[in-house]
């Protein structure tokens, strides 16, 4: 009896040992470099989760079909193991553990959203696994001293400060008055901090500073206040719900502001869902297809847009573009490191300095991309057809900013 117990435990210990030693080779199997990602395929982030996954997949196919990754004179192909994190931070952290410990993944791609990236980053950091992420912009991700986290996108505090600068510029360099409405979540509050910095820097004045509860979908009170105080700029950030609610109620309540700046316009499909009512809204975006950045794999934004639309049947939102860029960064880092050693790959990532179709990529100490400014586009309508046109920074502007916004009585 005792003997069988001992044998049994020995066999199971052996089995465990074997299973871990087998999978620990999984980082590079044959000619494949295996990356791991927990991604929101179900749950409240599933739309953007799918955009992220499509962006990753498109880049994997493209890189593999164009010669793959060359390390140590040999050619490798990318492969990604995905798990569905159900839009749940706890689940995402568990899955990151599983990818690293059970599947032996040694290089990670980020999940969708700042919240989930925040949940995963401590895990990848603990195991020293380099993670390139494309969808976590919250400033707090880059102030924790993480060494293995790299974000190809601009941090959240840079989303809308450009708008304040633009308003000041249009006001002949004089300070402006600002009304703000931001949802109470990590991302939107980071955007708010950026706007506050810009207000301070330009000597502007803050008239309204509303923090919208997450469960709120009525902004009537905030907008009535805006009507009463008549600011020069109205800034709104509250994910897609905030963007849709703001545009609907601004139109219904006939709120006249010279400038309206917001986030998440393309995720909310503003121009499609609201048509002409969304006209003149300024939107912060990480990427726009008309930008003139170039690389060897996707050529430029317009080509990426066309190829993506052909493959997936819809135009790529910036969430997809930045996800594709993450793979280009990994490829570049592997080739420069010329090794699969995690530390060497990490160091190579830290030295990244490249241009992709999505923008220039160069990481600061904290891991955020400091070489790619945000762009602002404005919704412009010709009859009933509305389009997003880049208006700032002027280097990439494809249209002149319409300022001030015509009042509702003149539309």
């Amino acid at each position: 009896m005792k003997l069988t117990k001992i044998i049994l435990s020995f066999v199971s210990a052996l089995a465990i040992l074997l299973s871990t030693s087998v999978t620990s080779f999984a980082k590079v199997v044959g000619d494949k470099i295996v990356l791991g990602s927990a991604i929101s395929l179900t749950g409240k982030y599933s739309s953007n989760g799918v955009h992220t996954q499509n962006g990753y997949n498109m880049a994997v196919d493209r890189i593999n079909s164009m010669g793959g990754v060359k390390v140590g004179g040999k050619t490798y192909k990318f492969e990604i193991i995905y798990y569905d994190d159900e839009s749940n931070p706890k689940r995402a952290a568990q899955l990151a553990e599983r990818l690293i410990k059970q599947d032996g993944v040694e290089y990670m791609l980020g999940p969708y959203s700042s919240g989930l990236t925040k949940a995963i980053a401590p895990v990848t950091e603990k195991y020293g696994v380099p993670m390139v992420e494309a969808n976590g912009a919250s400033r707090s991700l880059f102030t924790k001293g993480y060494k293995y986290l790299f974000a190809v996108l601009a941090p959240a505090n840079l989303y809308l400060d450009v708008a304040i600068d633009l308003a000041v510029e249009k006001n002949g360099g004089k300070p402006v008055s600002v009304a703000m409405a931001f949802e109470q979540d990590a991302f939107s509050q980071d955007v708010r901090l950026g706007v506050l910095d810009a207000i301070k820097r330009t000597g502007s004045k803050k008239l309204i500073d509303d923090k919208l509860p997450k469960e709120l979908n009525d902004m009537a009170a905030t907008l009535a206040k805006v009507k009463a105080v008549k600011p020069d700029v109205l800034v709104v950030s509250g994910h897609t719900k905030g963007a849709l609610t703001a545009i609907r109620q601004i139109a219904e309540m006939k709120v006249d502001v010279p400038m309206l700046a917001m986030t998440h316009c393309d995720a909310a499909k503003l121009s499609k869902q609201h048509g002409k009512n969304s006209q003149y809204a300024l939107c912060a975006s990480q990427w726009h297809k008309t930008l003139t950045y170039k690389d060897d794999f996707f050529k430029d934004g317009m080509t990426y847009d066309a190829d993506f639309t052909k493959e997936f049947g819809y135009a790529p939102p910036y969430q997809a573009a930045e996800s594709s860029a993450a793979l280009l960064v990994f490829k570049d880092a592997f080739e420069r490191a010329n090794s699969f050693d995690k530390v060497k790959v990490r160091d190579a990532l830290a030295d990244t300095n490249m241009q992709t179709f999505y923008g220039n990529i160069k990481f600061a100490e904290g891991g955020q991309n400091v070489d790619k400014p945000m762009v602002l586009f404005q919704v412009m309508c010709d009859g009933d057809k509305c389009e997003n046109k880049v208006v700032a920074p002027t280097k990439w502007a494809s249209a002149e900013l319409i300022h001030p916004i015509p009042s509702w009585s003149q539309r």
Partner: protein
Amino acid sequence: MDFLIFQVPILMVQASLDGILLGILFALIAYGMALQWGVMNIINIAQGDLVILGGYITYFMYLSGIHPALGVIVAPAIMYFVGVGLYKLVINKVVDRDLFISILATFGISILFMQLMNFAFGADVVLANSDFGTTMLFNNSVTLPNSKIFAAVISIIFAIGLVFYMKKSKLGRAIRATAQNARAAKILGVDTEKVYAATFGINAALCGVAGALVAITFTIHPYMGLPYTIRSFMIVIIAGLGNLPGVAVSGMGLGVFEEFADYILGTEFRIGSVFLLLVLILVYRRFKLSRKREYLK
């Protein structure tokens, strides 16, 4: 603290009207909840999810080119059968059980509905545009979206219609009898099983109407149901069970209170102040009851 509302008094008119219109819509949802709570002794956590489902029905009508205002007829018709179906599948098994069991069961339904809607309709925030325009008052300084006025009018019509239905029709009388004493009603020949199914169906239909109105005035999303459940729960708690005029008054009162809290304390304290009010009301009631030497049932 912000005293803008006192400096610009016209904002008080705006806040009151916004609050009343918002409150009437919430009162409709609470009305359904009070009805089935009173009749079946079930607290329906999935109330808000039924609202959102009604909203999606309207949204899909809107997508296929039908004016979303017609959703207030189509959504309740469909939702009635969804409600009856739910009753036959799940609710009839928990109806005579402990309140806790019914909360668990409806909580389960709520999660299931959220996931199914997310799976079927996607996780995008959507809305239905009614293009109803805007009513301007007081020299354009007060604006009322016609969609909100429409929502309030429809809510009132349905609420009054239901009151009459409960008073006059055979089923309505049976529902009221069952609410008073299910056992006695059964002895007197009322098919309580049928009454329960109809009650749950009527509640779902009211949620369908409210959902159509939410899609027209606000936005819908698979995971946005819970705030509607909580709000209607609070309205019912404040009004008391079986007090239908009370539901209307407490709905509007909460709406106005919320708007004023928003202006004076700030938007971030809007929801918090409503909860604070709820606690105060419950403490006050408890105090009053203890003075009367009665007991809470």
